């Protein structure tokens, strides 16, 4: 119950103001198609440099929570999911809006997001310290395998092709080795003066997530990209609350599904909403109404994608393994303040850990309150033309990357990585495992070097890195995640019709 002691810190004037700003800004950013939560959080990191670690994390956490929920606004009113997590919301949410129940759909979406989100954060509160204590038993070999696990799990589960996902992870791990070696001081892969200090994580994050989005907007040409907003008629919030209470099955399925999926590293919110929607439909007595503007569809999808947010931070805060790409960006936000996840975070910086987690709990309530009132405004912002969005995101990326350490080298790295990622994504490579490799690379290397020193003085490399129950368990999970993803990919390929195959190839 340590978290209760730090509740007051959330309400200090600056922290609360950042929480409020992050929530409202996140709702608007989330409603803007093309601005994913990961990209929004990456672009916000430079703004946290001048803040204390706690305050910076409050801002990033609030933005993470509310961008996921804000995506429902454009999903419901424009039929454009603000983020991949909101795809399932469009199925019934937009139909409800077309039937004149847009306000009800929005209210249900924010209320169920808040219920799911609060449950997810409570899971984070009670699971994290237990797992963090357990992580204390980890030695260098285990931490090395944990870092490899983080890269391989996201590499295999988050990519369309297992081999290309793992290859992206390898590229990230290699990029993390560029610069001067920590122990010997030797130069490694410095083929341009801009790389002398290595690749800055924040600049890389901005480039890898924001620049491909800018180029995607360019790719649409002179297209307004603005969709017609459906007018929102008035609807009583109390009625929406009553409707939510009348649908406990959809709410429970969504909340539990989202929480469980969030705990699995790499799976993330993209599928939480869809899985919850599907399960809710299967167990519903009114399954025939799904897809035709049924409130249960909105409740299941939205409670799931917000319930995923809290648990996705459990593996991050305890074992340094981000549960989703956005959590990977948050890890970058922690590292720039010199804070390492795990028991160190809870033992040496409890005020940072608990204030951040508590702020996410309060953030869920604020997100619900403000979401209900600014949905209309957010939908208008979502109509901003793609040309403006592309120019805004490009300029923010350049300023953001430069402000990390006032270096043009970081801007060049950001632009090069971003342009490269845009083209590579078109051929099945993925940004998430690359980022994970870049972030977890130094952790993997430090523990590999430390482990090899211990191994050389004791049992030898093979016994040290491959022996022991925990090492074997971690290696098994690494191999199992790769095998499972390869099997899923093969099964998906076999189930494709000849028409699908042609479509993929063209």
């Amino acid at each position, binding site marked *: 119950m340590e978290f209760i002691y730090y509740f007051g810190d959330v309400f200090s004037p600056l922290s609360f103001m950042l929480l409020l700003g992050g929530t409202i800004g996140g709702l608007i950013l989330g409603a803007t198609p093309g601005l994913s939560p990961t990209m929004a959080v990456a672009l916000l990191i430079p703004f946290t440099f001048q803040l204390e670690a706690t305050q910076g994390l409050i801002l990033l956490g609030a933005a993470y929570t509310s961008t996921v929920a804000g995506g429902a606004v454009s999903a419901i009113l424009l039929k454009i999911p603000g983020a991949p997590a909101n795809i399932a919301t469009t199925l019934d949410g937009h139909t409800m809006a077309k039937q004149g129940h847009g306000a009800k759909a929005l209210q249900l979406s924010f209320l169920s997001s808040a219920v799911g989100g609060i449950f997810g954060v409570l899971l984070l509160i009670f699971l994290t310290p237990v797992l963090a204590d357990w992580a204390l038993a980890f030695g260098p070999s285990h931490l090395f395998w944990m870092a490899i696990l983080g890269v391989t799990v996201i590499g295999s589960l988050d990519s369309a092709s297992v081999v290309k996902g793992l290859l992206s992870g390898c590229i990230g791990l290699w990029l993390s080795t560029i610069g001067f070696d920590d122990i010997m001081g030797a130069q490694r892969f410095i083929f341009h003066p801009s790389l002398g200090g290595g690749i800055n994580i924040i600049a890389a994050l901005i480039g890898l997530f924001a620049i491909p989005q800018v180029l995607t907007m360019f790719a649409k040409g002179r297209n307004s990209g603005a969709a017609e907003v459906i007018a929102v008629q008035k609807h009583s919030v109390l009625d929406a609350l009553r409707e939510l209470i009348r649908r406990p099955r959809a709410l429970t399925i969504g909340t539990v599904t989202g929480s469980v999926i969030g705990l699995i590293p790499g799976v993330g919110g993209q599928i939480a909403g869809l899985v919850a929607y599907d399960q809710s439909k299967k167990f519903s007595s009114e399954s025939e109404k799904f897809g035709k503007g049924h409130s249960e569809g909105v409740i299941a999808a939205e409670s799931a994608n917000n319930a995923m947010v809290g648990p996705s931070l459990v593996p991050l805060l305890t074992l340094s393994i981000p549960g989703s790409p956005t959590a990977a960006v948050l890890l970058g936000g922690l590292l720039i303040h010199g804070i390492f996840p795990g028991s160190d975070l809870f033992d040496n910086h409890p005020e940072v850990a608990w204030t951040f987690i508590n702020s996410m709990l309060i953030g869920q309530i604020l997100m619900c309150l403000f979401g209900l009132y600014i949905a209309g405004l957010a939908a208008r912002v979502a109509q901003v033309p793609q040309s403006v969005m592309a120019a805004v995101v490009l300029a923010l990326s*350049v300023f953001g990357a430069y402000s990390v350490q006032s270096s*043009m080298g970081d*801007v060049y790295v950001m632009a090069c990585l971003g342009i490269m990622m845009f083209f590579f994504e078109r051929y*099945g490579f993925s940004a998430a495992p690359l980022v994970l490799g870049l972030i977890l690379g130094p952790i993997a290397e430090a523990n590999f070097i430390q482990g090899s020193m211990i191994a050389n003085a004791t049992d030898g490399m093979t016994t040290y890195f491959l022996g022991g129950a925990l090492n074997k368990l971690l290696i098994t999970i690494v191999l199992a995640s790769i095998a499972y993803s390869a099997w899923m990919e093969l099964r998906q390929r076999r189930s494709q019709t000849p028409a699908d195959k042609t479509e993929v190839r063209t």
Partner: protein
Amino acid sequence: MNRTQHILPSGLVFAVGVWITWISYTQAPAEAFLFPRLIATVFVVLAGWTFAKAVMGKSKVGTGLSRSMMLNILPGLAVMGVYVFWAATAFGFYTATTVAFFVLLSLYDPSSHRDAWVWVKRAVITAGFIAVMYALFALLLKVYTPREILF
């Protein structure tokens, strides 16, 4: 999507893989390249596999690039390249951003280029955005950017 489109990125990644493997195994001190060797070995195997699949025409993942998409991207990419790699330091961040923002807005704005009011609107949006950026980065965050002209 034709085979060449897959061969180019896979070939590039494979070439990088071969290069880092060669560097990792030949550069001294060997201790500094212990971890890169491990990564490079896995990297080159996976990259070789991907390249071989692309050469055999078995790469199926990804949407590829169409001619129209490339034609749409190229002007923006050119502006972005000039802005990031030259203008930002040559003219100063704010001046370069103003010009790049206005040019990009004009290039991709679907509104008519013959309407004078549209040009005024674009200029006002650009001025408003730069004012916000200046307030945020120069005044609030106190980020000292390269300054050459105007700011």
